[in-house]
């Protein structure tokens, strides 16, 4: 009898929670003089956490300064956290965005990281003519839609990172920089380059591009290795690379394999400079994760603690402080700049009408923490000297320092230091 009662109670609690949660969720209304920013990301992971932290910093600063001025009235910015869970479930992401737009009534969406999910979220946002500013997903599959069907997709923008094509281009520039250093310091006229790219589809075009372009840089391509993105041991690949006689290793790691790669590269002291994209190497905990073996790893990054603009170092320090000194800002924290850009567009438009805001956002010329943000015709952040270039960052003696750009079409960020080869490669080093 008691069991039956407990069972019935459990079912009733479940049902009533659903009815209340659903009904309450569907009944929210607008609050006056408040603008709602939906911060969308996988909140149980670092990417979503940084989306949220960057947005919080922007919202706190803007509200402290009086809010957003529209038609003589001040509007407060309220953040709505949207846990898209996009790394695990696309339907979850879609439902989360739908809820944010139709229940929470957000005025704008910022964030997203996984392109497959971002494509779905983009469709829902465009269905509802809601401005969606991406701060994470880099693929051009998102931006080409703006060019293909402007009237439908004009509400979509990307503030960070630079798109995948520009990421590849910039990583090749870093490769050339290292190549020049190898030539100058080691006297090797034609450096040998091994390519190690994790076995994910994002790496496929990169692998093809690397094989095609390396010879044109005056270097020799000596082999391609494709470990699993979740590999915990890449000793076999590194040993083979060492045996190939490579002087440089060009890398692409977007996931956890970047840590064992760097750790074992340092442990084995492979006589080849490592350069490319290693997302794990952008994190503050990288040295600890590699047992301090990750020194001299050189990776493309969104920013470093150098004077990219007047805003960079104050933003960088404020972010680090907000995380209790535990984390550097990744590109996902670009929600900070996204909210400021949107805020300024609203004030120029003097309206919260999305069409009017879009017109002003297209005119954006904003000095952000990552560089000067101007949108191209497909609403993608422009890359290049004078705009957003990204930075090359290297771990030197346990510190993450910026080593590029140095005189890149006249651009050098104050605080940038010269790139260094691993000491075991340099005679007497």
């Amino acid at each position, binding site marked *: 009898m008691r*069991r039956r009662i*407990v*069972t019935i109670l*459990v*079912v009733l609690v*479940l049902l009533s*929670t*659903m009815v209340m*949660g*659903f009904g309450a*969720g*569907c009944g929210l209304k607008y609050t006056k003089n408040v603008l709602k920013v939906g911060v969308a990301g996988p*909140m*149980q992971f670092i990417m979503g956490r940084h989306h949220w932290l960057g947005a919080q910093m922007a919202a706190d600063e803007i509200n402290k300064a009086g809010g957003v001025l529209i038609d003589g009235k001040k509007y407060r910015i309220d953040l709505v*956290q949207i*846990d898209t869970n996009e790394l*695990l*479930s*696309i*339907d*979850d992401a*879609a*439902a*989360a965005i*739908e*809820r944010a*737009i*139709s*229940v929470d009534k957000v005025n704008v969406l910022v964030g997203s990281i996984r*392109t*497959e999910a971002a*494509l*779905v979220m983009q*469709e829902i946002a465009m*269905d509802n003519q809601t401005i969606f500013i991406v701060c994470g997903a880099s*693929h051009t*599959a998102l931006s080409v*839609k703006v060019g293909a069907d402007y009237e439908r997709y004009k509400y979509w923008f990307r503030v960070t990172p630079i798109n995948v094509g520009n990421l590849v281009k910039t990583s090749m520039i870093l490769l050339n920089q290292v190549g020049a250093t190898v030539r100058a310091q080691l006297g090797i006229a034609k450096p040998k380059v091994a390519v190690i790219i994790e076995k*994910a*589809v*994002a790496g*496929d075009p990169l692998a093809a591009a690397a094989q095609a372009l390396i010879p044109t840089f005056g270097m020799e391509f000596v082999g391609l290795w494709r470990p699993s993105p979740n590999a915990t041991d890449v000793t076999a690949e590194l040993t083979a690379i060492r045996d190939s006689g490579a002087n440089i290793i060009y890398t692409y790691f977007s996931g956890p394999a970047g840590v064992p790669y760097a750790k074992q590269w340092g442990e084995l002291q492979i006589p080849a400079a490592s350069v490319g994209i290693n997302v794990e190497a952008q994190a503050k905990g990288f040295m600890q994760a590699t047992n301090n073996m990750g020194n001299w790893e050189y990776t493309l990054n969104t920013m470093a603690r150098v004077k990219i603009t007047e805003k960079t170092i104050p933003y960088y320090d404020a972010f680090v402080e907000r995380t209790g000194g535990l984390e550097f800002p990744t590109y996902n924290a670009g929600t900070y700049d996204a909210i400021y850009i949107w805020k300024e567009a609203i004030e120029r438009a003097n309206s919260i009408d999305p069409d009017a805001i879009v017109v002003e956002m297209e005119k954006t010329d904003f000095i952000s923490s990552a560089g000067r943000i101007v949108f191209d015709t497909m609403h993608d952040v422009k890359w290049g000297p004078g705009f957003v270039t990204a930075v090359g960052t290297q771990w030197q003696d346990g510190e993450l320092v910026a080593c590029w750009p140095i005189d890149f079409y006249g651009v050098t960020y104050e605080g940038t230091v010269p790139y260094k080869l691993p000491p075991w490669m340099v005679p007497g080093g």
Partner: protein
Amino acid sequence: MTVVRYLNWLWREFKGEILVLPGRSILFFGAVALLALPLVFRHPYALRILTMASIFAIFAASWDLISGVVGQLSLGHAIFFGTAAYTSALLNLNAGLPPVVTIPLGALAAVVAGLAVGIPCLRLKGQYLSLATLAFPIILAGLVMVFSSVTGGELGVSGVTRLAPTRLKEYYVAVVAAIVLILAVWKITDSKVGIIFHAIREDEVAARASGINTPLYKVLAFCLSGLFAGLAGGLYAHYMRIAGPSTLSVLTSFQPIIWVIFGGIATIYGAVVGVFVLFPLVEVLRVAPELRMLLYAASIVLVLRFMPEGLAPWVIDRLERKCPRCKEHNAFTRRACRVCGTALRVPQEKGVPSGG
């Protein structure tokens, strides 16, 4: 007069087949409520949740058919869902075919996948069969990455035509499809073929000894299951406007297992109940984002602790009684079986102690 006679017949059938059992009445009026809901409530969020639930209910029912009814536990059901999703999406984008054509064609591709899975698995039983089925979507996911120029690789195939021009029409397409297809699955399990399926699950050796060509029927089961899962996959691709590697993921394979076991395995209606309880529950639990998945898992464990055969059978057990003689189900309010008249409850005499 013909119309009146027809309506009378319809009413007699409705009363005799649906209203006579509380379980069927709940499902019937639940379906009616789903169809009538937009007349009073058209919130886009609610419509999205119910549309997705309808599509997943078809997927879950297809899993229950092969794993619950036939007893061939499939751990890789995403193979059918994903095959159809990709086929529908690619036909739509490359051949310009509309959803009404691509979805059935995608389902046919899933039937072929059913053959590809069913035939090699004929000699396997139990956990070996399950592990083998787990491998198939992983293999297909690998092929998707290898032929990324066709399949879009990690990005999937996007830009797929909408299921219908408006959110409301998409809702009705999904709900009507769910009602029709799930009824079809249920009718299969309630037919002669269904009896053979049940027999294979209960004792395949005995079924074979009775002269049933069990390999043929097992392959048929995989194909039918693939067909319905494929229809769900095609609907999904057009609704989400993308077919990506997530449609072949392990999570996609495991979700129908959770829904069906929660709802009640080998019942078909259990799959529907499981999806329509758990899918909205996951949304409701967004109010507690950090605890969301923990609460979701805890809810499932708690319910299964007290209702080990699933939610729907537990409810049916309390609302219906089985006749001890002819085994037909009757409403719990009846004193005698509606088919054979056998007493369903023995009235308690005064002064006579109950029990032994």
